[in-house]
């Protein structure tokens, strides 16, 4: 049923018909817009999209404008997943009842949420939708901070980041907790397909999105979305920031199929030290003070251990 584009090179992909158009007011350099374009342009199928309250929503549907050349709904911060589940169910019913002719191509259902909407306030709703097995793709635009409200910590904020509600100060190095492992949690729901993607590895991303669209049941995609405003790099450095994330293995690219089979989809030729990733972003600037250096060491150890774990799981096929 799916009608997906052949991805030959970036040029043909980037000139494909747009479903996510101009007239948005996302920050220059925002990775959200890159990711959303890549997701929507990965398929020619009709799309029904929901968005959680957040940067993406408030910047792309400001009345009387809209950036969405597809069916789109925003209800609240927490319920983008349940809104799309409702629409997906309605599609089933109207086909069963014959009110949508049987030969009408099946649309795809996608929900977008930031890390606040995904890891925190909307988590219950996503969990419910995945448990019930609705046929849709949930894409988390993970910028590791509540960016829309001006830079508060979320449960995706990594240890040592300075945020407005977990600020670095004379006696604090900022965020104290490690980032929640959302991918494992979503895989444990029995989802047929979960994956981490990053916009700099666009071919890997589009492949995973297309696989997601071809999968029946709830699919979870965690997309690293570098935030120029809150991570405080220059707007033209978005892809560089993403490169550092994937090449330092701070944000490894992999997929889990049916909750068990794990595939690492990107192995950097030259692994960059975590220190370089942190040094690139002023939100971690204070970690380079002597009293905080131990956090950088802890970072590196944890990233190494995680990489080791992912490789072992890939080999073990469990």
């Amino acid at each position, binding site marked *: 049923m799916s009608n997906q584009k052949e991805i030959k090179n970036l040029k043909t992909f980037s000139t494909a018909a747009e479903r996510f158009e101009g007239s948005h007011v996302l920050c220059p350099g925002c990775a959200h817009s890159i990711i959303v374009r890549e997701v929507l342009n990965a398929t020619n199928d009709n799309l029904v999209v929901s968005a959680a309250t957040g940067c993406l929503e408030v910047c792309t549907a400001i009345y009387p404008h809209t950036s969405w050349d597809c069916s789109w709904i925003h209800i609240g911060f927490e319920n983008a997943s349940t809104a799309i589940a409702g629409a997906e169910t309605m599609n089933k019913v109207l086909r069963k*009842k014959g009110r949508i002719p049987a030969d009408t191509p099946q649309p795809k259902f996608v929900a977008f949420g930031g890390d606040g909407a995904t890891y925190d306030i909307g988590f219950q709703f996503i969990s419910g939708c995945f448990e019930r097995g609705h046929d849709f793709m949930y894409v988390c635009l993970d910028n590791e901070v509540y960016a829309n409200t001006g830079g508060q910590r979320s449960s995706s904020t990594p240890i040592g980041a300075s945020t407005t509600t977990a600020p670095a100060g004379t006696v604090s190095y900022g965020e104290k907790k490690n980032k929640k492992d959302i991918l494992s949690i979503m895989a444990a729901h029995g989802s047929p397909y979960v994956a981490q993607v990053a916009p700099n590895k666009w071919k890997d991303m589009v492949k995973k999105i297309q696989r997601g669209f071809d999968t029946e049941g709830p699919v979870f995609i965690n997309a690293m979305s570098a935030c120029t405003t809150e991570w405080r790099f220059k707007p033209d450095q978005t892809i560089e920031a993403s490169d550092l994330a994937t090449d330092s293995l701070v944000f490894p690219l992999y997929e889990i199929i049916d909750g068990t089979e794990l595939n690492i989809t990107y192995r950097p030729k030259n692994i960059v030290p975590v220190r370089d990733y942190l040094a690139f972003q002023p939100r971690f600037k204070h970690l380079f003070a002597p009293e905080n250096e131990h956090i950088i060491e802890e970072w590196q150890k944890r990233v190494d251990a995680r990489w080791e774990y992912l490789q072992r799981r890939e080999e073990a096929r469990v």
Partner: protein
Amino acid sequence: MNSKQMELNTVEVWDGNMANAQALRQAAVDVVAAYPITPSTATVENYASMHANGYVDGEVIMVESEHAAMSGCVGAGAAGGRVATATSSQGLALMIEVLYQASGMRIPVVLCLVNRALAAPLNVNGDHSDLYLTRDSGWVSLDSFSPQEAYDMTLMSFKISEHEKVRLPVISNQDGFMTSHTAQNVRPLSDEVAYNFIGDYKPLNAMLDFSKPVTHGVQTEHDWHFEHKAKQHAALMASKEVVKEVFEEFEKVSGRKYNIVESYGMEDAEVAIVCLGTTYESAILAVDKLKEEGIKAGVVAPRLFRPFPLVEIAQTLQNAKAVACMDRSAPGGTVGALYNEVAGALFNTSARPVLRNLIYGLGGRDMTINELCDIYRDLNKDAKAGKLTGKIQKLTGVRGPELSFYEL
């Protein structure tokens, strides 16, 4: 419809929850998303049972919370089909955020609200705390006083909600336990008559219509927000006339006549009470008793709680000398909501009866006919004196020393 035909008798013995479920079945609702809560649970249980036995064609999504229930309904409604759910009390409180979103997006949804007290203290019984919580949410709100009326109102809710001039969600209220769990004779319409009365669902701006992509739930600032809310309010106010029309059409198919303001004994009433829900039926019995005693009593019940029928209430009360507005909800630091509404309705008319506010029946406490008679007798004192003979507000039927507030 592909669903199995359900054989109905001319008269069925249904409680209010079954009445709701049957109305949902006959409306051929496409998607029901729900989460159980006492005393509305059986509405969805009955419906799920009909679904499990092939009498329902649509889908039932048993979600993980009431917030998700209404979120699913809004998503499904925006997709382009008929949706409904049921809830009570804390469940309504949890879904209230989405109530505003449904009405703001002009999505037709029918909510069977089985009225119950709000915690704390936790209480599963009937009062109007949850009904009052929906006051400003932009939904049309209808009230029923018996299982028959619950069935009728829920059926009519679909027709009102989906009407081209309305396109707003509708609440069909009934009293928890007093109506929802009391089995009475109900005369259902046949499936065919009921469905044809409501009609096929006509999608508007449906997300599943891919010939015309649509953006629902936009962001507005001061530049447009006011205009959106003004249009929404205008539609809600105008829905009163649609409700009247639907009531008239319903009378033609059912023989049952409804008014947006119900009243009894008001032709010559000097003293009246205004109330919601099952208290209306008790008050009718009290009125009959008092008329025998020579007290000219009457009772008024707004069938339509939103939009509030200000003019019709004022007209119905125009000859009353003393009126008690009965609020079945904890007053929260002021006079009851119904008192405020009725006072607002009367203030600019020449009829300016003495007004009392009675807070009663919280958490399911009975309001007996004898107590109602006592209220009328107090009102009669006010009417004779031409002024309040007590304080404005009284908590009636509460244990302990009398609680009354607000002296003029």
